[in-house]
């Protein structure tokens, strides 16, 4: 089950972040995570894939794999934003479209990054999550 997959990955991330007491250490880790983001094709870095509402720019693409799951690729011109994308991709990529669309993403809260979900936060994590769900929902609709 994809929902279980998302849940276990969230648990993993929460575990991992629990090691960092200090805010700065947490961000150091986030920066590391940004380095592993599966890169979006340069050709796709167009306005179509640009997420609105960010101070930094984020490009995001979603593709259906042969197994019918969703694969995200992304990039950002800001490193921390990329870390946040990386975190989202790590939790969601490879899950079923429907599971992504409906996922209960409590881990951001648990690891103290909840603040980034505020719609007014300039990195636009909220817009990012919304866009990921929208892509997934669109795929799920096509699959149904």
């Amino acid at each position: 089950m994809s929902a279980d997959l998302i849940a276990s990955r969230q648990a993993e991330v929460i575990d991992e972040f629990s090691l960092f007491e200090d805010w700065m250490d947490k961000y150091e880790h986030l920066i590391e995570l940004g380095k592993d983001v599966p890169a979006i094709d340069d050709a796709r870095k167009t306005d179509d894939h640009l997420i609105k509402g960010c101070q930094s720019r984020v490009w995001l693409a979603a593709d259906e794999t042969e197994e019918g799951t969703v694969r995200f690729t992304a990039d950002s011109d800001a490193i921390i934003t990329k870390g946040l994308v990386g975190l989202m991709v790590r939790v969601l990529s490879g899950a079923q479209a429907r599971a992504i669309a409906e996922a209960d993403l409590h881990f951001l809260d648990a690891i103290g990054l909840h603040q980034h979900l505020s719609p007014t936060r300039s990195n636009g994590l909220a817009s990012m999550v919304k866009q990921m769900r929208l892509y997934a929902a669109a795929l799920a609709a096509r699959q149904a």
Partner: protein
Amino acid sequence: MASLTLPQRIRKEFPILQREVHGKPLVYLDNAASAQKPLAVIEGQREYLSNYHANIHRGAHHLAQLATEAYEGARTKIADHIGAASTDEIIFTGGSTDAINLVAQAWGRANLQEGDVVLVTQMEHHANIVPWQMVCSEKGSRLEAVNVHEDGTLDMADFAAQLERHRPKLVGVVHASNTLGTINPVADLCAQARAAGAVTLVDGSQALPHLGIDVQEIGCDFYVATGHKAYGPTGIGFLYGRREMLEAMPPWRGGGEMIKRVSFEGTTYNELPHKFEAGTPHISGGIALGIALDWMNGIGTAEISAHETALVQHAHSALNTLSGLRIVGTAPQKVGVVSLVVEGLHPYDLGTLLDGQGFAVRTGHHCTEPLMDHLGLESGTLRMSFAAYTTREEIDRAVIALDRAISMLR
């Protein structure tokens, strides 16, 4: 606790009610002009300024985050309080006047044309008259007004007739009159107006502090109110607009916040609600308005309404014992407003002599000059207006003080 009256429970929360005026205890009966503030509001504003003030929305730092969350949280409270479908439909403004001007300018200038009619009522506050006069005169449109009966109720037959006759583009009506107290049947009025093809605006300035409000039940396109009459701070109010209306309107004020992208070649505007909110907003005011609504909801608008209805009934009977006194506005449904005149005496004299005894009342036309003209009350009225903290005893004392004033002047 249950046996305590509402004022007994809450008066201690209002520091100003402890003060004296001219050596006498203050009796504040000018609530329709502006209500006093509970400690929650005063301290909430202070807490904001002392602890988490920052400019909002674009800041990535922690204080900006806290301030933004509190300000946007207040928007949510307003949306919930009046039953809006979405927070996007709540635009913060400087008050009701600012909100009506926004509609008159943004919607009116885009939609009104030569020969079009805007229909309001004879009991509107100047805030729901002058903005329409201004845009009508620019556009060659006409402002018409529905008749008000002697008792202060709206002439429903005239309303229907004028709808039919003028087919107005917009109907603007006050939810509750600040001069007469009359509560208008706004849901009915909006339904009729909508059926006649009109856009509807309800001025809820006096309703917000007194009544439960549900804009979807009312069925209006626009609803405006102001914070300072509803136990909130000055300089803040809101416009509710149905999403489709707001989406279709051009912005009014330009500047920061309301844009998506600015360049000298061309500028694109932000999404709702920000499209209508240019510049740094009144952050502390927005937050404190949210606190004021929380405070009201902590009591419950039903209890506040019931309390004020009882006060109005009590005031009517107590005042009717004074000879030569006439109550202006005796509609069956009223908010806590009692206007009166005393034969042969100028309201200003009465108001002054009440002030001397510690009573704050308002005299004059209450920004409803056309209504005063219509009712033949050239010098206006003396108005006592109540709030959740007003007591029967205060009203009794006001009647005695008024009696004394009358004797002195006769």
